């Protein structure tokens, strides 16, 4: 009897530790978040930003200085949002809401101080491979422009 229980316990433990090879592969969604500090005064524009079409048009083309503060590679899973710390102390969180039939992804974006819902509580975007922008926060004498790009197709990965 004891040996049977031990064997059972062993199998349960073994089962728990095994990789979930019998389950669906996890499909994560890759993305990129650019954090840009834009100022109206004359100054340098980061080379990488010059290739982003939208930043060459109004209203962004009024900013004569654009500094790429950070580039964050993010991964969104079904239950794993991505969080990016912003230079002004707030956090930007991106959650995957839905994978659309047309290859785009519906994501929700929020910008808040830690543990608060006080700034941009909710933004829902259907994102293709092209970026969208959240701008307007004041920081260090300029304006933060956050570019979010979510991959058009899911990147498959298995665990």
């Amino acid at each position, binding site marked *: 009897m004891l040996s049977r229980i031990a064997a059972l316990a062993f199998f349960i433990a073994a089962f728990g530790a095994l990789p979930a090879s019998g389950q669906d592969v996890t499909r994560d969604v890759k993305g990129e978040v650019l954090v840009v500090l834009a100022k*109206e005064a004359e100054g340098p524009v980061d080379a990488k930003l010059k290739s982003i079409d939208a930043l060459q*048009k*109004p*209203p*962004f*083309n*009024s*900013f004569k200085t654009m500094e790429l503060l950070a580039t964050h590679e993010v991964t969104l899973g079904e239950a794993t949002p991505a969080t990016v710390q912003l230079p002004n102390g707030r956090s930007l969180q991106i959650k995957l809401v839905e994978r659309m039939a047309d290859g785009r992804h519906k994501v929700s974006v929020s910008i808040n101080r830690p543990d608060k819902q006080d700034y941009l509580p909710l933004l829902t975007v259907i994102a293709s491979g092209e970026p969208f922008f959240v701008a*307007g926060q004041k920081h260090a004498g300029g*304006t933060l422009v956050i570019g979010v790009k979510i991959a058009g197709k899911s990147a498959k990965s298995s665990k």
Partner: protein
Amino acid sequence: MGPDADVELVARARAGDRAAFRMLFDRYNRRAFGVAFGVVKNQQDAADVVQEAFIKVHRHLDGFQGNSSFYTWLYRIVMNLSIDQLRRKKKVTEFDETVRKDDLADGATLPQGAHENPSKAIARKELTDQLHAALTELPEYHRAVIVLREVEGLSYEEMAKILKVPKGTIMSRLFHARRKMQERLVGYLDGDLKVTE
């Protein structure tokens, strides 16, 4: 460029003169668009209305008797098509919620013109958004009247002819629409925001 000049262009267009028809189009396209947009509140829908209106004008040139001025006739067509479009869209949104998302950025590009201060462009955009929201809250026939008056500067008499209602009805709708808009936009109409370029 008064109604008499229109009469001549209409006669030439009726005889197949495409240049004359183009001149009529050029003369009234923006104004017709302004009126249509004021009612349907969507740039693409307004463009569809104007396009369809001029197609109808061309098809019915033979039937235009000249009893009213050309622009009265045109605006009547634009009004009818605009209201049709509103009603069509209302039916669609009742059972298709996803259409409503278009309203969020409907025709909402910032003007490409200026390298202007971004705060100013954004402030102006916000003003425009509030204005559109206020117009959308008006009943469609009130919206039609205030747009015809403010955009086209038409007299009460002219509006009464276009909309085929008594002059008193025009006045009542216009004054009501203005009052509602002023109540809705109180912060913007009294404040320091510079509206004109």
